[in-house]
């Protein structure tokens, strides 16, 4: 599949690898972002033709799409003759391959229907419900376009990955012209169906059964937590970074650069990619997770200051790599492992030293402290969360 796409689509090899990997779990959703004329629609159609052949429907956000065309419409003869409201479900609902061209131009009503389908795997029209079977959904948009509507962040969060395409270099332009001539200016039509949808479903089942090593699961969860955690509870705070971070001990950490944090879907998307990567390559390293995370994060978070989202996230992932290495040097998980078994004052002192360097670790230590305070092993005023003023949300002593 990757070879067939690469033979028709010039450049952007890394994103094509991610695009293919992302199709290996049920109800895969992919968003392609690029400036105009870089090949968003071509790549979208190549992918869908490679998997679904002709069983694909393209909804174009640029045209005036009505709900009836995307979800379903009333069967007028049934209504007139029998007075029965029968719904004719749209081809978009029934097809295996679903394409949305220029999703940022889609009207809010249609977007809400597609959002519901991605969330619950079903569609509603005229009080009737239809279950949507497994599918492949690929959408594209040009974020620089003057769009008619701004879609809510939860809608974008439903896309597993968001890949960015770049314009072609000089030599790549020559290659593109050769490819266009070779396929008589019809690249999409020349794309064969690489495997049937049934074969894809079999692959998806096998990928779902892949076991991930606890270390890799831990790294994925740590990565996502580092992009969420805030000792000042940013999620419930009315004041957001950078104002919220004034005077914070962790101001120079990853958390200080994030305005709106990741959702838990980021971890799920990364897990799916890691499973697919192991299924294809046999193994997966922490470096591979960082490379894949670059395409899982951009559409899910808002940074305090964005110059170039890909470069900014690359920078944060580089910090994450350093953080993981420092955690290993401090051997903090070993300390936590010991403390989970029983309280030990000497180990606790070392763990406290580690906690002032790491929010995610501090949170876990604070949870243990609360348990020790309840058990009478530790006094309240000796705890890290009292001394540093870090607290988890609580009401009348009950932690939520």
């Amino acid at each position, binding site marked *: 599949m990757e070879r067939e796409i690469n033979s028709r689509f010039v450049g952007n090899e890394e994103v094509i690898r991610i695009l293919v990997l992302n199709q290996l779990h049920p109800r895969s959703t992919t968003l392609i972002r690029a400036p105009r004329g870089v090949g968003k629609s071509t790549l979208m159609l190549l992918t869908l033709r490679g998997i679904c052949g002709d069983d694909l429907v393209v909804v174009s956000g640029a045209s005036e799409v009505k709900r009836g065309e995307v979800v379903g419409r009333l069967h007028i003869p049934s209504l007139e003759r029998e007075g029965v409201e029968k719904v004719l479900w749209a081809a978009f609902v029934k097809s295996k391959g679903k394409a949305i061209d220029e999703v940022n131009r889609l009207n809010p009503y249609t977007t809400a229907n597609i959002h519901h389908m991605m969330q619950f795997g079903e569609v509603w029209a005229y009080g009737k419900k239809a279950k949507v079977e497994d599918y492949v959904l690929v959408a594209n948009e040009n974020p620089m376009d003057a769009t008619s509507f701004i879609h809510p962040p939860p809608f974008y969060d439903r896309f597993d990955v968001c890949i960015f395409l770049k314009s072609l270099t000089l030599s790549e332009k020559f290659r593109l012209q050769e490819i266009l001539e070779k396929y008589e200016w019809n690249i999409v039509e020349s794309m064969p169906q690489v495997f049937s949808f049934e074969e894809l479903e079999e692959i998806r089942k096998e990928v779902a059964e892949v076991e991930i090593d606890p*270390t890799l699961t*831990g790294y994925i969860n740590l990565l996502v937590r580092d992009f969420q955690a805030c000792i000042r509870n940013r999620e419930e705070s009315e004041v957001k970074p950078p104002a919220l971070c004034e005077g914070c001990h962790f101001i120079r950490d990853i958390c200080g650069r994030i305005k709106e944090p990741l959702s838990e879907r980021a971890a799920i998307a990364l897990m799916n990619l890691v499973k697919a990567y192991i299924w294809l390559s046999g193994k997966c390293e922490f470096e591979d997770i960082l490379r894949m995370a670059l395409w899982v994060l951009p559409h899910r978070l808002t940074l305090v200051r964005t110059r170039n989202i890909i470069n900014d996230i690359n920078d944060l992932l580089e910090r994450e790599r350093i953080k993981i290495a420092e955690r*290993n040097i401090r051997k903090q*998980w*070993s300390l936590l492992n010991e403390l989970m078994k029983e309280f030990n004052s000497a*180990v606790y002192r*070392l763990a406290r030293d580690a906690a002032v360097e790491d929010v995610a670790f501090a949170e876990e230590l604070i949870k243990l402290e609360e348990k020790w305070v309840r058990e009478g092993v530790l006094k309240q005023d000796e705890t890290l969360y009292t001394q540093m003023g870090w607290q988890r949300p609580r009401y009348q002593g009950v932690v939520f």
Partner: protein
Amino acid sequence: MESEKYIKFLEKQARENPVKIEVSARSDSFRISWESDEGKPTAKGSSDILETLYLGKDMQETVIINRKVAILLQDRLRGLEEENIRMRRRLRLLKFAVAFLIITALMSIFIVISQYPSIRIF
């Protein structure tokens, strides 16, 4: 109740980056060592400043220290300086106490000798 996978993650990390905790037979104190039994470096010395400080290993020609470790060492040094000042205060106090005890002992001997002239030292 913690997730089984979370426990497994911690246990695996503990195996890969072990800490040794040895309970002292004489007191309640512990000795914590970051030394790993597995994968010990073959080089004679270590380039990690923490290993040379905490594990007593010889230093290699080049020793690496990053900012976080430097801050850690700075903190530890500050703690030791404070401890040092405290100990010096105690030492001074003890010196006075020893001097006082010596003077008291000498005076006691002098009084005893003057009371009993029959006692001869030699």
